[in-house]
């Protein structure tokens, strides 16, 4: 600590000399109140915990992943093969197989199935909750309830759905007792049903969170705008589309990008729901589930290459979304 305390002090003095400003000592002589500049270095010290954690747990693994992706390195049973440097062969293999695009497609389809209803419902709920003229009762209760599904662990939630929708599960017996179907419907043998289930679960889990975010955005809009619109005779629909939505755009973009990134990393729900198989016929296999498949043989080379590609895809998609929904007002 002793050392740390005096080093930045010297640096400070150097800084002051360079910029032609008065050093604190000189300053004290002139004006006793301007000591505040000295506190700068505490900022850096407060940053140390974050920085150390970030470097150890994020930056080093990140570099390590990229480094690993150039090696052939896996286990077969108790045998270790590699690491042998093979350049870009892992990338070539992944890109030439074409599976990545199929699984990327699966991921996006399931994300959209969940995201579209999610944003619609959240906008609707957000608009209702923030509209003072509706005078909704028990708002607090409903806000808590819609958020609750997010508190359940995704895997527990997936397990629950797996049991509910299994061939002999409660959903099938209810449908059969109501005479809607005569044979149990095999949800997990149907591509559409499995994907819809995954999307539906993501919707249930995340619409509460999105509602809260959008509500925060809506409450940030100046109330006088709404009042002015009302005075001018705008309908509720006009107010929503002409005032709320345009002013909500920054928050919407934020929701879209975070949800997209989260969606690309979709893993736990389909993994648990299909017991890691991505069945039927690998139509619910996401990119991360595929990555997980490579870890069975501790295939760090392929796993690393896949992660780097995933990183690039995520980056490109985020930039595209950001460009198309840009926040500049003259568009």
């Amino acid at each position, binding site marked *: *600590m002793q050392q740390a*305390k005096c080093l930045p002090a010297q640096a400070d003095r150097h800084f002051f000399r360079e910029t032609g400003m008065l050093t604190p000592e000189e300053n004290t002589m002139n004006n006793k109140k301007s000591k505040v500049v*000295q*506190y700068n270095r*505490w900022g850096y*010290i*407060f940053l*140390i*915990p974050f920085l*150390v*954690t970030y470097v150890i747990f994020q930056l080093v693994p990140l570099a390590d992943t990229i480094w690993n992706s150039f090696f052939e390195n*896996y*286990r*077969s*049973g*108790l*045998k270790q*093969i590699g690491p042998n440097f093979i350049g870009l062969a892992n990338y070539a293999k992944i890109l030439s197989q074409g*599976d990545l695009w199929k699984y990327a497609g699966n991921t996006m389809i399931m994300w959209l199935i969940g995201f579209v209803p999610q944003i619609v419902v959240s906008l609707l709920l957000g608009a209702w909750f923030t509209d003072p003229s509706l005078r909704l009762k028990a708002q607090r209760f409903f806000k808590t309830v819609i958020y609750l599904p997010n508190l359940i662990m995704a895997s527990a939630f997936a397990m629950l759905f797996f*049991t509910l929708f*299994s*061939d*002999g*599960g409660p959903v099938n017996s209810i449908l059969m007792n109501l005479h809607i179907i005569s044979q149990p419907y*095999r949800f997990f*043998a149907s*591509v559409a049903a499995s994907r819809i289930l995954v999307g539906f679960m993501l919707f249930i889990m995340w619409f509460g969170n999105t509602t809260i975010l959008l509500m925060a955005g809506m409450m940030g809009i100046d109330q006088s705008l709404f009042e002015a619109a009302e005075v001018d005779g705008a309908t509720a629909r006009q107010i929503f589309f002409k005032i709320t939505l345009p002013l909500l755009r920054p928050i919407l973009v934020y929701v879209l990008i975070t949800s997209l990134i989260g969606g690309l990393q979709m893993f736990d729900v389909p993994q648990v729901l299909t*017991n*890691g*198989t991505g*069945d*039927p*016929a*690998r*139509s619910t296999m996401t990119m991360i589930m595929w990555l997980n*498949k*490579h870890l*069975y*043989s501790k*295939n760090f080379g*392929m796993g690393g290459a896949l992660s780097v590609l995933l990183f690039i895809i995520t980056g490109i998609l985020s930039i595209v979304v950001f460009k198309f929904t840009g926040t500049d007002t003259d568009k």
Partner: protein
Amino acid sequence: MKKKLLSVVLASTVVAGLAAGCGSSNSAAPAASTAKDEAAPAATQAATEAATEAATEETAAADEGKVLNIECWNTEFQSRITDHYPGYEKVDDTTGKIGDVTVNWHITPSDNNAYQNNLDQVLPDNASADADKKVDLFLMEADYAKKYVNADVTMPIKDLGITDDDLKDQYQYTKDIVKDSNGDLKGLTWQACSAGLIYNREAAKAALGTDDPEKVQEAVKDWDAFKATAEKMKKAGYTMCSVNDTYRVYSNNVSAPWVQDGKVVVDDNIKAWVDDSKALADAGEENTFDLWGDDWAKGKYPDGKVFCYFGPAWFFNFSLSADDAKSIAANGGWGYVVGPQSFYWGGTWIAAANGTDNPSLVKDIMLKMTTDPTIMKEIAQKDSDCVNNKTVLTDLASDDSGNLALLGGENPYKMLADGAEKVDMSNISDYDQGCNEEFQKAMKGYFDGNYKTYDDALAAFNKAITEKYPDLTTD
């Protein structure tokens, strides 16, 4: 000045907190090496204590270890030991005592290969592990036994002092599975898992007009007869079984191993399983439920309307829910016949981990649990297991002592003993488990219609196999 003091205090709290975070993780690490700990002053005291403790224990364990660690994937062996090993006292669900030795059960379920991943992690470094952490015994299944037997993580049992003479009553196939490439035996089992067809007597009466084992065997004596019976079962409102039930019957009767010269080859008999199963599943005569799933397990109850399961003797006790009064098994409603082809399924081998510090206890457990005739007979009678002992089995087959209540008083031991003599282990490979699992998964997609053709499903299987075993090639 006050503000500055506050900043110093706050900043040092944050940084110290970070350092303390590292420190406490050091002191918590069980096998903390002393050298490392000295570098982190914050943790010195705790580490010294830990080191002293470890040192004392090591001197105490100079003779033989005081802790016996057993790796397993379910509670089957644990309950055998609890019930039959003399002197074993149960402490709680995962610990027990034999004399003054503590027995720790490390249960890692087999799902998603977790059990083997765990073994792959701990076994190679076992010799240098802490005395109390050393794995002493571990269990393995036939599907992957070769993988561990051919690596030097298992101890030849002759090094424990077990002789061929001790094992003269055991079936040859149970020894073949666990022989390494030098011919050294590296594990023992108490089970002889020849398997057959376990049928629902109620269903047999409804569709075939009889539940007499001889007549039922006639109706399922080969695959053509089996298919004809499946048709009758459907008319009577029963499903024959799951396509996954019959898989082992086919896959045990292959003419070549899964992997030949690093290449995965689908045997003709396995292809026959696909063709037969597709036809039966399309006709609605077989279902495609996963083994061990809830839907599959419904057949153990009268309402499940399932004609049969395929399984060995451990299946009677372990998998038919005999302890539930509503199940078919509790009412003695099952029968046992050999079925279309004889096969074997599973069995649990006990292996000594290289580096064990309890060799004499390990030897005693292996001998008592797999060769002692009294214990063997007890296991057969109490747990309806088919034990790996020719004399005991002949004994059981010869009189009423082998009659099983859940089979309606039928005595299956003659059939089981005959089957065990016939088991041929020449076509097993290191990769059997992965291949069997992935093949069944891929073909399920074909049976359910999600893969249009067999070739599509086969391509999916090939893909999954090269993900699991990057060193293998496929067509």
